[in-house]
């Protein structure tokens, strides 16, 4: 009898192990669990015989039976894990995507680089409370020249050779500065604007010159505006656009409509200021500026005894060329999608 119970346990151990390892899915495994360990299960059946054993043997047989029960639980759990892993692997066999393959980006329209640079410029100045003002591209001589202290035969007109249109003394504006005059004529200080747009000069076309190009003008008029404010504004602008590590250099300059006049350069990002082929001794000239000439304020209807102002002007093409590494200004007006789609 005793021999029988122990032998049955031995047999059951061997066959249970075999059957658990052979179970093909979760369902078979669950059925097996019930068949072995359930109320009417095989191990339960063996355990029932324990009562008939002598007390001395009962303890050892009981321990062996409990050990087997624990082992079977363990085998089932182990098999369950194996089956789960197999299920996952099987899914990847039937449903597999090559994740190393890079699809084409979603097709989108591309905005013009001058739109993008103007967006950056507008965002920087709008943080400083500037409004965008616009003016006509076909201008009169008063706003384009005379009101800006550039009378006929002034040498500055040589550098701003203009296109005249078939209408009384109207021309294509040679700079965005006439917007200064128009804005002062129609608004009282405080004034804080930028004025972007196309300008035209009779310049021969080459990689850095075109007869049509883009500028933006800035004008601030208020009580107590100083050159230090202009300097700070230029630094804020240039560092916002090109990066906080750039250095800014302010030099003397000359424009008929500002006094004093200054020029601003930013340290070259390629050589770090040491001097290279894309810069002038480590500096990139980015804008001309100055304190608005008292006569220009007067021409705009503003009393220079009570107000002062500063103005600045920069080439949007040039800023875009510097920022986006464009080496030929003519690309901006050549609507080649191979160029446009890079932005």
């Amino acid at each position, binding site marked *: 009898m005793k021999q029988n119970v122990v032998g049955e346990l031995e047999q059951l151990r061997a066959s249970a192990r075999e059957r658990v390892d052979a179970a093909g899915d979760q369902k078979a495994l669950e059925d097996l669990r019930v068949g072995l360990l359930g109320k009417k299960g095989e191990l339960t059946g063996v355990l029932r015989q324990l009562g008939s054993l002598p007390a001395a043997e009962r303890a050892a047989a009981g321990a062996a039976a409990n050990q087997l029960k624990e082992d079977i639980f363990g085998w089932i759990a182990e098999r369950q894990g194996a089956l789960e892993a197999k299920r996952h692997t099987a899914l990847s066999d039937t449903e597999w995507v090559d994740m190393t393959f890079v699809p084409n980006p979603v097709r*989108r*329209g*591309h*905005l*013009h680089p001058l*739109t993008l640079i103007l*967006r950056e410029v507008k965002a920087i100045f709008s943080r*400083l*409370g500037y*409004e965008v003002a616009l003016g*006509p*591209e*076909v201008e009169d001589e008063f706003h384009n020249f005379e009101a800006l202290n550039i009378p006929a*035969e002034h040498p*500055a007109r040589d550098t701003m050779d203009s*296109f*005249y*249109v*078939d*209408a009384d003394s*109207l021309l*294509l504006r040679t700079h965005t500065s006439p917007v200064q005059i128009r804005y002062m004529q129609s*608004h009282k*200080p*405080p*004034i*804080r*604007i930028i004025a972007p747009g*196309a300008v*035209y000069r009779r310049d021969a076309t080459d990689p850095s010159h075109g*007869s*049509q190009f883009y500028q933006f003008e800035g004008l601030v008029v208020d009580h*107590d505006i*100083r*050159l*230090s*404010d202009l*300097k*700070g*504004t230029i*630094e*804020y602008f240039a560092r916002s656009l090109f990066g906080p590590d750039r250095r800014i*250099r*302010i*030099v*003397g*300059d*000359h424009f008929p409509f500002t*006094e*004093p*006049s200054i020029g601003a350069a930013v340290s070259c990002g390629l050589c770090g200021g040491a001097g290279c082929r894309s810069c*002038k001794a480590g500096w990139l000239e980015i804008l001309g500026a100055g*304190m608005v*000439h008292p006569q220009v304020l007067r021409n705009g209807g503003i009393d220079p005894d009570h107000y*002062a102002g500063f103005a600045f002007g920069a080439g949007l093409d040039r800023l875009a060329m510097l920022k986006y590494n464009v080496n030929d200004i003519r690309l901006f*007006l050549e*609507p*080649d*999608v*191979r160029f446009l789609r890079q932005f």
Partner: protein
Amino acid sequence: MLISLNWLKEYVDVPAEVNTLANRLTLAGNEVERIVEQDVDFEGVVVAEVQALRPLPGSTKNQLATVTTGPAVTEVVTGAWNLKVGDRVPYALPGSRLKDRRIDTKTFLGVQSAGMLCSAIELGLGEDAAGIMILDPSAPLGMDLRTLYPRDTILELEIKSNRPDLLCHLGIAREVGAIFNLPLREPGLPKVRTSAAPELVRIDAPDGCRRFNGRLLTGVTVAASPAWMQARLRAAGVRPISNIVDITNYVMLESGQPMHAFDYRRLKDGRIVVRRARDGEEIAGLDGKTRRLTSSDMVVADTERAQGIAGIIGGADSAVQPGTTDIFLEAATWEPRSIRRTARLLGLRTEASSRFEKGLSPELSLPAVQRAAALVAELAGGTATKSTDVYPGPLQPITIEVDADRIDRVLGVTVELGEAASILGRLGFTVERKDRRLRARPPVFRLDCSIPEDLVEEVGRIYGYDRVPSTLPGARTPVRDLYVRAEVDETAREVLAGHQLDEALTSSLVSGSGTLAIAMPMATPSPVAIKNPMAENRDALRRSLLPGLLEALAFNARQDQGGAHLFELGSVFWKADANTVEQPQVLALAAHVPAGGADAAAAEVRSLQATLATMRDRFALPVTDFKQAEFPSLNPGRFAGFHPGRTGEILDGGESIGIVGEVHPEVVSQLGLPGRAVVAEVLFDRFSAAGRRTPEARPLPRFPGVRRDLTVVIQGKIAGRDLLQVIRQLGGYTLREIYMVSEYQGPPMGAGARSLSFRLQYQADDRTLTNEEVSALQQGIIDGLKARFGAEVRS
């Protein structure tokens, strides 16, 4: 402007570090564009004198020169023919070095040639390669040429147009002195007694000549100028010619005043007449070219004819040449506008004209003529005998006042009044200090200063803008403007880029006659002409963005980039009347349909319409709508360039504000564009004026709605807009939305038949709609469409 450091050192102690000098000059507004170390690199070259010249037997190209360096006499073969006996020349001794080249004794055609005679370019002392460099006859024999020509550094400066006084070495020396607080050493002007001879010069055109100084010198000897002068001229980019001519150039490069020397004996009657040229009068210039003048050009003439174009170039007839004994030196102040106009019309800019057209001070000419006369006496012999000075309207000195507060307020930094006064003094201003005010009289050579701000600039740029702090204007933002900030163009760009259109910019300048005749219908028929175009194909302003975009499509197709979709937002130009040009902001779209023919183009028309409608929905425009364009039977008129069956006008409250449609296939093939093209153009100003639409939320439906489909087959050109109106009307208030599902033409339907499918959304706010009531509405619509359009309807 080229500045020789060796020359500059005569007037001011130049700081040792040339980069520091260049940097400070740049900060002060005189940009140093380049620093060039003179390329002088030789050893063992000395001064020698040519004692004899004889042919080299067997050679037609070379000759044999006997030269002496003092004690030694040697023979050298030379290929140059500009030598004569007695000339002093640079002689590279045997064993000497010119850059990497060793010079030794060589044998030419059996003759020993010891060393080499050198040209200026071989020594790096000039650009002249034509012959052996002829030295000053006083150059000591045997002297090392490096002693005679110390190596020089040349600064290339960009001088601003308001500062012609800086186009000379003294001017730059004064700037250096002001920047580094160093004393200036101006050359002295010896007093030479001459008799006033007003009869020598007559001014017939006083409006063109502000001052005329002349001086007659007799008994001069024309020869080469001394080595030091030649070296300085070469360093400043001017070729030495002869002592007299070199002196006039030297004085200009020293003091900024251009000069001219006439051979006095060549002047008819020994008289100078300053007048306007006669129309068609010709003059042969020093450059060997003959030019025809007009009566607006100023000339310096004798009693017979023009001997020079005033302030621009001298005449060949009266040029100083070897053998000239009497010279007339001219230093005048010409009216800048006249010089500028003549120089531009003749296409001739010279060292003189570029100075005069910027406006020189009339106070420069007298010292210049004195300085030149002294140099002539010293270097070419001769005696100054007569002088003349015609100066009817002397310069009136001005005084500018500025107070300390003003300087501080404009610059935003406190500059000690003493420092400000010192800066102005160093720059040549006569300064008086009174309490907190400065009274400054500009130096006579400065015409660019007249208002207090000019003084502030002088103080600021020398004080150093690098010492000005960086601040931002006080935060008194003009709030008024911020309210109206409306980034309408950005909204449009966002929609268009989202619809896969790329943004292009095309030129505003177009060909007046060669541009495609296609535009939105309200554009003026002809473009605004440019009076002074640079090119024939850029002689007008665009009246529409469409031709430029269509050309862009063709351009891209040629680059193997067919199927481009582009948009542009920009100005067009419409001439309203003789004095007014309207400049509306216009938005245009253009899509290339490379394949698929008519059907694909029709689909593209729908696609652009959808894009426009999407954009419109972002703006606060009242209802915009599309209307079939009605082409006149014969001439397409304002719809020129468009497809007669596939063009619609864009309406805003019944008014046409643009156009959308297919480009006429003939126009497309004329462009060389394969396939078809679809475009749209609309007055963007209307969208800007309306501003962006503010989204307005409605409550979500509380009861379920009912969705029904409806397919309508119609015959002929029935407007979908009319169809929708009937559906909307009959559907009543519970018909909330009508979606267009599909549009189809073709088999199995017959020609002219079109099938339109809609999905209708019914919805009530207060109850759940029943199937019965929706069915009744649908039936009403079906019956209505049948009755009104003869439509065949399936529900």
